């Protein structure tokens, strides 16, 4: 019996030496226009929101005319989207890990109330009050992260719960009372720093807008140029594979939620400047608006795909639509209608692009 093994049964492989040595050639030209487009978009998922943004700006420039296409109006749009934009940056981080954070706006409002309460009513120095707000944002994110990684709850349920918890805490701490702008000016003007602006011609740029842009650039660097960022993408793409490849996935996930919480606390500071006062009732829809911006920006809700910059463009697209339709004299309800379709189309395009691998 042993002798049959001395000549392993490999005869069928002997013809391999004369096998065809040419390699598979990929003929790009055979894909056709649609197929090529699909491939290009697969490699550059941010292209879709960029195209939509440019087309929307041009279209509204034609429809709404001069009033839309002014530096003043364009920079106003930037100001209007800055808070949701910053929240969308935090949201993007979480969504890239295939999670979702419904508590971003609740964390933001809670931290603005805490910082405001401390600085305006309790006489804590403004920098210290802000630092406590940052720590609170990180702590809130850590709580989300712990529940998700240690208790193993789905992110959707976890943050649905903490959204309500943070909102209730915020109403309790504030007594459902706003802190007036005059009081902030009198005691802690630093809280309104991001409402300050400078002008270039007729364009008015607030520091809040700059903050948003800086946050996006920093996150872009972190996600694309560092090992940590690649790990975040890999966890979102395939958590099991990431684990086997040696990434400490739970620890990285907690860091993601903590960083998101910190960004929410930055948004809290910026929101005081943007709104001019601190209202516990503000930004109640901010959670969903941030998700809207992320989805329109081409970041996949299934995780692992999309660029953080997409969320910035997504937020701007929403702002451009709202401003353009308003200036064109369209009723608010049709603005909402248009945003609804944008979301559905964005997700449909994402699904289509993901099929490219086949």
């Amino acid at each position, binding site marked *: *019996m*042993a002798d*049959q*093994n*001395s000549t*392993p*049964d*490999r005869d*069928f*492989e002997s013809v*391999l030496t004369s*096998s065809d040595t040419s*390699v*598979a050639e*990929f003929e790009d030209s055979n894909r056709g226009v649609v197929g090529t487009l699909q491939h290009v978009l*697969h*490699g550059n998922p941010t292209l879709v929101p960029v195209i939509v943004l440019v087309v929307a700006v041009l279209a509204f420039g034609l429809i709404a005319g001069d009033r839309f296409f002014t530096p003043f109006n364009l920079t106003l749009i930037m100001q209007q989207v800055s808070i949701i934009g910053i929240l969308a940056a935090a949201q993007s981080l979480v969504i890239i890990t295939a999670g979702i954070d419904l508590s971003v706006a609740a964390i933001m409002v809670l931290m603005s109330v805490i910082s405001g309460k401390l600085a305006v009513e309790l006489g804590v120095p403004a920098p210290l009050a802000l630092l406590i707000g940052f720590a609170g944002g990180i702590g809130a994110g850590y709580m989300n992260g712990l529940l998700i990684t240690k208790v193993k709850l789905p992110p959707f349920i976890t943050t649905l719960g903490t959204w309500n918890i943070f909102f209730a805490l915020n109403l309790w701490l504030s007594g459902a009372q706003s802190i007036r702008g005059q009081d902030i000016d009198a005691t802690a003007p630093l809280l309104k720093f991001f409402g300050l602006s400078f002008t270039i011609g007729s364009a008015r740029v607030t520091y809040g807008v700059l903050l948003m842009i800086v946050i996006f650039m920093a996150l872009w*660097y972190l996600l694309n*140029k*560092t*090992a*940590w960022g*690649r*790990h975040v*993408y*890999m966890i979102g*793409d*395939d958590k*099991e*594979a*990431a*684990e*086997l*490849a*040696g*990434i*400490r996935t739970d620890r990285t996930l907690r860091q993601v939620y903590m960083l998101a919480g910190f960004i929410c606390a930055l948004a809290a500071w910026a929101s005081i400047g943007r709104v001019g006062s601190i209202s516990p009732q503000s930004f109640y829809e901010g959670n969903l608006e941030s998700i809207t911006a992320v989805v329109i920006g081409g970041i996949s809700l299934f995780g*692992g*795909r999309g660029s953080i910059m997409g969320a910035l463009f997504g937020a701007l697209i929403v702002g451009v639509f709202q401003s353009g339709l308003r200036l064109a004299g369209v009723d608010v309800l049709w603005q909402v209608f248009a945003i609804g379709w944008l979301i559905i189309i964005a997700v449909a395009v994402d699904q289509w692009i993901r099929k*490219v*691998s086949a």
Partner: protein
Amino acid sequence: MTNPILQARGLVKRYGRVTALDNADFDLMPGEILAVIGDNGAGKSSLIKAISGAVIPDEGRITLEGQEVSYSSPLHAREAGIECVYQTLALSPALSITDNMFVGRELKKPGFMGKYMGMLDRKAMEDFARAKLSELGLMTIQNINQAVETLSGGQRQGVAVARAAAFGSKVIILDEPTAALGVKESRKVLELIQDVRSRGTPVVLISHNMPHVFEVADRIHIHRLGKRLTVVDPKEVSMSDAVALMTGAMQPDAVAA
């Protein structure tokens, strides 16, 4: 008599009421190709996961070069020089070939940007990945930055094997490396395995493909019902006997006799 480079004694792993590993032993000698064969559900995958740090055994000891080790994650095993290609490949489909090859051991740029800003040295990583892949000659990949999901099954396997071969310094473990491959690609992987051994690195090969196992293995570890049934020499045992042992149609002493 040389000592085993990697040894396990009395490994036990239970999942609820299922005992995947039941007092399993394992020995890998330096410089050899050890094949691990066994029926479906015999616990082969649990065994290699235990020795590569992907699962923590409930009981038992693992020694690497005579030192007792206990890994709490694949990262620790990798740092110790044990590299594993899982059946699922553990590749991230949306990320590029380069990103996948360097997961968890990315190269940083020299100087300030790398040290304090954590900037990756993409160029060095790409060059290294390209060199390793062409060394393998397993496939022709046009673009080292294309997403892994755009590759064929064989190419993906090649990326995973290249990753293990590039970084595994002490032990390389391959779980079903030829299962998804065509005849030609399989041959390339088998050549690679022999190439790795000739460089002195021992290889653990888990496979269902008997001709492949009997061709390259120096010894064959037969796993059955969660433990090591026996170890046989492929030059002395026939394929049908090995299959009989593996499926319980024959007892080990019958072969020895």
